[in-house]
């Protein structure tokens, strides 16, 4: 179990770095929703299945949709 958590954590860190560094906003949002899914997995491993479910719904669901909508209404590049 520990190994799984280590792997997932590594994934989390790498994903989050990509999310922050990526020039394309749309790409970073998609990566962010993947990050949310992996985060949910970690939480499940840590004995919080209900929270994991909530995280999937909220982070990868509602918030990602909100992000995509706002990005479509603004610009797609990583500049202000």
């Amino acid at each position, binding site marked *: 179990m*520990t190994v799984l*958590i*280590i792997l997932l*954590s590594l994934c*989390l*860190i790498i994903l*989050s*770095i990509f*999310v*922050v560094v990526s020039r394309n*906003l749309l790409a*970073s*949002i998609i990566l*962010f929703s993947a*990050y*949310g899914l992996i*985060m949910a997995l*970690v*939480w499940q491993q*840590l*004995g*919080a*299945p*209900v*929270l994991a479910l*909530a*995280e999937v719904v*909220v*982070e990868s669901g*509602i*918030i990602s949709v*909100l*992000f995509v*909508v*706002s*990005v479509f*209404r*603004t*610009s797609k*590049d*990583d*500049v*202000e």
Partner: protein
Amino acid sequence: MLKASFSNLIYVVSMILFLIGFYAVAMRPSLIKKIIGINIMETAIFLFLIGIGNKKGGASPLVVEGIEKYVNPFPQAMVLMALVVGVGTTALALILAVRLFECENGEKR
């Protein structure tokens, strides 16, 4: 030393994620990126809180007969509430970002 850092793995990871998120908030010019950074920070803290409540080999806090060792449910309840509040905050931030963008580009809808 190595063993200690293994048991504290969750804390270390959450701190790293927190700092990455903080970098995005502080350094990236794009408003959307800042909001994403805020979300990363937020999830990092949730991870930290869940890590606090976790006990080795503890079951999730659902009462099932025969299990005596549960993880602490209290941090999980906190995270759930904070998660909900966080959605609201993110939504408001996005609304502001979109309005600001429209204002600056002279688009009125």
